[in-house]
């Protein structure tokens, strides 16, 4: 692994100047390294962060990659990480013209990392440096506590995909003073509806009473208001105190364990909390990349194409570039290519905005001919795609812009898969050309971890009670016991998980009869896992 030579670096710097002139906006400094294929194999399990903490699973992955490489040697072009300065890795045998295209692509990614709001929590630190400090910390624990460090890493990682990424983002820009005080919150959201079982009308009346007091004297409003509440409901104070003791400020399960686990509170186990925090922060750092794959690749592809085609250094390499670019951005006959879909969607957004189609006026039109002919020549295309780059995730892009026009224009369809026992083959067939089906297929393919939280009302020091919010998909059953055993370790006592499983009735004739839902409760104590049904009325 070594720095790019001066010749190639000069090309990169030239590309940066031109990209900036075109409107992209990113930090001045970047670092480029030449890496061998072997380096790449070793870096990939660490998600290309050279300083990421060591962990045996990564070593297993590296050994597997070596094996794979023996059979299927590959030659990756580049990869870029969201660090400060942004670091990108290259193969050392690319010709100059290819490097220009690749550099533009990389610059697109850097611009995206540094401007898309989903990355906001990564903007203040250089993750490569943070990771190095974390790696040293874990290494120091490893020398003190041996393999138990790796167990803690393992168990923390077993829930690092359900970190509260969006909650963390929301917290960042949240203006605290807009939130009512915790006592008000409790009174209106818990005490009135749950304890007193007041109906909405009464709650509304109470809110009005508070608002009137607030309007006349904002400073004194709360104390006056609660003086009256306490005289009317003497039990309020103790109820509030109870709730405050239990209230979890945690955004996710890892944080909940760190804050509340009786096992981790013991002096001798405190160090585990720092390991868990490292795992959580690392997971949060990677979270936005998983949620912006399509829009990020689309954005980088859009810019490498636009910039390189307008670059005089392309002269003489047009044909070779076309072939390379097509390999990257052409729609697959069967399968999903995030580069292609992302690029097409961005181009579509640009066109809509250029013609003024993102307007009420356009949306009111009904006739296809009128829609087709609509063109206000507003020229807002660039502005629109910059907004997408700043604010959109994959889900938002797909959910907002995949429609029948888009699907038809690019001849897109949902591919189905079915066995043909007579021929002994699996057949791929055109299943649907409807936009709603295509959109659903895209959204189903997106990264979406389950939502699992601790239920504070059912959790005690002896027993941690987790609830899975069922979204139509069950959890992978094979993994549940293993994860629970790890959580059992981190909580120090029994752990329960309430989830929903889908029962399949093989004899059913209609699709509706085929599936039924069953709530189940997993319980893990002393590394033994049991499972029982939960009766609906009880739950």
């Amino acid at each position, binding site marked *: *692994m070594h720095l790019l030579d001066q010749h190639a670096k000069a090309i990169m710097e030239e590309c940066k100047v031109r990209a900036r002139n075109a409107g992209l906006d990113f930090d001045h400094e970047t670092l480029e390294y030449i890496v061998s294929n072997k*380096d790449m194999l*070793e870096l990939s399990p660490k998600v290309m962060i050279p300083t990421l903490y060591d962990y045996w699973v990564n*070593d*297993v992955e*590296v*050994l*597997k990659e070596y*094996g*794979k490489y*023996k*059979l299927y040697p590959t030659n990756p072009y580049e990869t870029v990480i969201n660090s400060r300065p942004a670091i990108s890795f290259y193969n050392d045998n690319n010709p100059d013209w290819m490097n220009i295209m690749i550099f533009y692509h990389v610059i697109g990614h850097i611009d995206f990392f540094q401007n898309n709001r989903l990355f906001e929590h990564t903007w203040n630190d250089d993750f490569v440096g943070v990771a190095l400090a974390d790696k040293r910390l874990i290494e120091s624990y490893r020398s003190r506590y041996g*393999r138990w460090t790796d*167990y803690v890493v*393992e168990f923390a*990682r*077993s*829930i*690092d*995909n359900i970190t509260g990424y969006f909650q963390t983002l929301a917290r960042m820009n949240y203006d605290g003073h807009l939130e009512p005080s915790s006592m008000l919150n409790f009174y209106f959201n818990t005490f009135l509806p749950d304890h007193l079982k007041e109906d909405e009308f009464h709650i509304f009346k109470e809110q009005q009473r508070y608002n009137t007091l607030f309007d006349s004297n904002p400073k004194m409003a709360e104390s006056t208001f609660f003086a009256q509440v306490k005289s009317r409901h003497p039990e309020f104070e103790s109820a509030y105190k109870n709730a405050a003791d239990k209230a979890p400020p945690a955004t996710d399960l890892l944080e909940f364990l760190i804050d509340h686990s009786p096992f981790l509170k013991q002096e001798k186990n405190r160090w585990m909390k720092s390991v868990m925090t490292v795992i959580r922060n690392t997971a949060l750092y990677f979270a936005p990349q998983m949620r912006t794959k399509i829009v990020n690749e689309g954005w980088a592809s859009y810019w490498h194409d636009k910039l390189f085609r307008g670059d005089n250094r392309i002269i003489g390499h047009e044909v070779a570039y076309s072939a390379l670019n097509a390999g990257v951005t052409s*729609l*697959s*006959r*069967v*399968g*999903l290519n995030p580069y292609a879909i992302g690029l097409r969607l961005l181009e579509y957004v640009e066109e809509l905005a250029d013609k003024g189609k993102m307007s009420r006026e356009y949306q009111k039109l009904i006739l296809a001919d009128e829609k087709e002919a609509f063109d206000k020549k507003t020229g807002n295309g660039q502005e629109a795609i910059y907004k997408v780059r700043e604010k959109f995730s994959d889900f938002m892009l797909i959910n907002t812009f995949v429609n029948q026009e888009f699907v038809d224009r690019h*001849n*897109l369809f*949902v*591919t189905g*898969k079915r*066995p043909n026992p007579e021929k*002994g083959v*699996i*057949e*791929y*067939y*055109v*299943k*649907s050309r409807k936009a709603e089906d*295509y959109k659903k*297929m895209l959204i*189903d*393919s997106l990264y*979406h*971890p*389950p939502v699992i939280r601790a239920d504070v009302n059912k959790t005690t020091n002896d027993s941690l009670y987790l609830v899975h919010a069922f*979204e*139509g*998909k*069950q*959890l*992978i059953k*094979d993994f549940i016991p*293993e*994860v629970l*055993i790890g959580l059992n370790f981190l909580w120090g006592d029994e752990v329960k998980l309430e989830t929903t499983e*889908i029962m399949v009735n093989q004899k059913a004739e209609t699709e509706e009869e085929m*599936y039924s839902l069953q709530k189940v409760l997993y319980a893990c104590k002393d*590394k033994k896992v049991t499972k029982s049904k939960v009766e609906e009325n009880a739950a």
Partner: protein
Amino acid sequence: MSNSDKYKDRQNLPEHVVRELELIEKRQESLRDDMSVNTSPYGVNDWEILPGFHEPDLTPIASLKTLEDLLSQDKRREEDGFTRRIRLGKLIKPAPGKKGKIVIVPTTTEPKFYHDDSITQEEETGGSGEGEEGEVIGQQQAEPQQGEGEGQGAGEGDSASHEEGTNAFDLGKVLTEKFKLPNIKDKGKKRALNKFVYDLTDRNRRFGQLLEKKATLKKIVETNILLGNIKPGEPIDTQNFVIGPRDQIFRIMSAERDFETQAVVFFVRDYSGSMQGKPTEAIVTQHLFIYSWLMYQYQNNVLTRFIVHDTEAKEVDNFQQYYQLQVAGGTRVAPAFRLVNKIIAEENLAADYNIYVFYGTDGDDWDSDGKELTEELKKLFPDTSRVGFTVAKNAWGGANKTTVEKTIEKSGFVEKRRDEFRIDDFQAESADENRLIESIKKLVSP
């Protein structure tokens, strides 16, 4: 140009420029004088100053563990009360017509709470281009695909290329050491090879590579008894000892003819219709493990023969075919062992080799009395080191004994032929790697 000349030229220059120039000159001079002096405490490092101390290696994977470390760490997990996590997988690159490549790699999965899409979500993906709804646009072989997948796949056993042999050898080593498979009890070295090894085995007086102290001392004592320096009953004064040049005895390099043990393994399996799916997978995986283990035990000197049977038996060329072949026919076990006996007799294998026969079946046999099979096996035993039967039962069979098991039970081989014969059975559906290893232990233990 002297200093005064220099300053003369500068008189026309503005004063601040002159001052600047002087400063630069002063700095240059001091640099020339103090080339080796470090002006900052942060400018020196151990790796520049200390002899033999090198710059720390900053490669990201400096701490990469070896497979052996990983496996021994994995073993510790059991002692700590957690399940083992590393599995040995095979990666196969298919090469139709020719021999595929196989590498052994470790794999692991991190259990997490993931959504399970397998029930609710149909397998769909995107597509683009022409085609009406419902139109078939492509197809794929429905058989378990050779290749890209990991884990349970076909292997290549014929060990044609060096690389494959090496990998099977490594796997065998791991299996032997980590899973505590027994070592082979040597049945005697059978085959003389024209191979020489060089070792310090011969002795030579006066010169050589390594002084043999004990023998030399004996010679010295002998010499000194003859010279009268050692007298019976009197104290020995070693200072008076005389050491003759011929007293020194050395070891010297010499060529040794080596005898090596070789083994031939017959892998035999039922490939009739009922074997489809799990039973085949279990049997073939187990046979690959056995092959690897023997490769290690015999230091790569293992020949393999592959035989498949339905109602007839036939020999196939390589592991690939052994794994892949599938017919819908019925099942008769005896012909398979008749073929094995025939090959052993025709090629006179028993004279030169340790012979192993491993047979995999789901237990089905149309000869319900099993007489023929019993006869063939009786013929086979005297020539073999071990015959191992694996019965990978299909789920629908329940706990009943299969025809093959009944035949074996009736023959009484398990008790009478303990040295040559072993049998093991399990449910194919639930046979994981550990169960297969367990089974191998049963089949090969002394």
